[in-house]
């Protein structure tokens, strides 16, 4: 009974993070894709050949936070939703395995993201 309660609470927390990631992916990811993947390589506004998207990663603390929150939130939301979608299309018997792989990708992805941002911004912890 107590174990079931713990599992239910963990599920509630995970779905809560999933929803937060959904808001992040909805509001912040489109502008990030536009800036880094379209505006910069094609020389469109607001870059126009003047700056490049590496400014987001090393320019300001706000930029670093934007990159971390957007990429980490979107990764959690995207993987979480996609692995549960796979269980809905006939892979239910692989649910545990899919969840394990999904959480592993999320965990490794977020740890690597944080590590890379810290390596590229050595003075960041002091800010």
């Amino acid at each position, binding site marked *: 009974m107590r174990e079931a309660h713990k599992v239910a609470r963990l599920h509630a927390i995970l779905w809560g993070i999933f929803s937060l990631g959904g808001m992040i992916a909805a*509001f*912040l990811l489109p502008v990030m894709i536009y800036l880094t993947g379209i505006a910069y390589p094609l020389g469109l506004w607001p870059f126009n050949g003047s700056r490049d998207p590496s400014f987001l990663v090393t*320019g300001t603390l706000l*930029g670093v936070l934007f990159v971390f929150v957007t990429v980490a939130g979107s*990764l959690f939301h995207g993987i979480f939703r996609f692995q549960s979608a796979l269980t809905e299309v006939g892979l239910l018997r692989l649910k545990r395995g899919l969840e394990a792989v999904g959480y592993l990708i999320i965990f490794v992805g977020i740890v690597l993201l944080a590590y890379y941002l810290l390596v590229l911004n050595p003075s960041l912890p002091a800010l």
Partner: protein
Amino acid sequence: MIREWTSLFVALFSLVYIYGLSLWVTGSRSAFLNLLKNPAMIAFSFIALIFTLYHAVTWFYLLGQVVPMKIGKTTSKPWQALAVNLVLLIVVSYLVIWLLVLR
């Protein structure tokens, strides 16, 4: 069901971005920028943007269905939540560009 599959592109773009940062950390900044300039990456970004926007629009509509707002005696409709959130999306996007690039 399309909405669930579009989440794959949300995750994929995040993973590709992390891969780009790994190129920068292990190599140079230009390796990261060259990845962004790669024609295949530009094409992928266009597709990811379309699917991410589709994912966002359906998310806003779902929000209106799941958590309708009560204003006086009337309850908000999903399309109203969609419209308000689309305006918010434009405002937030401009704010991000202004704060991080233009300022």
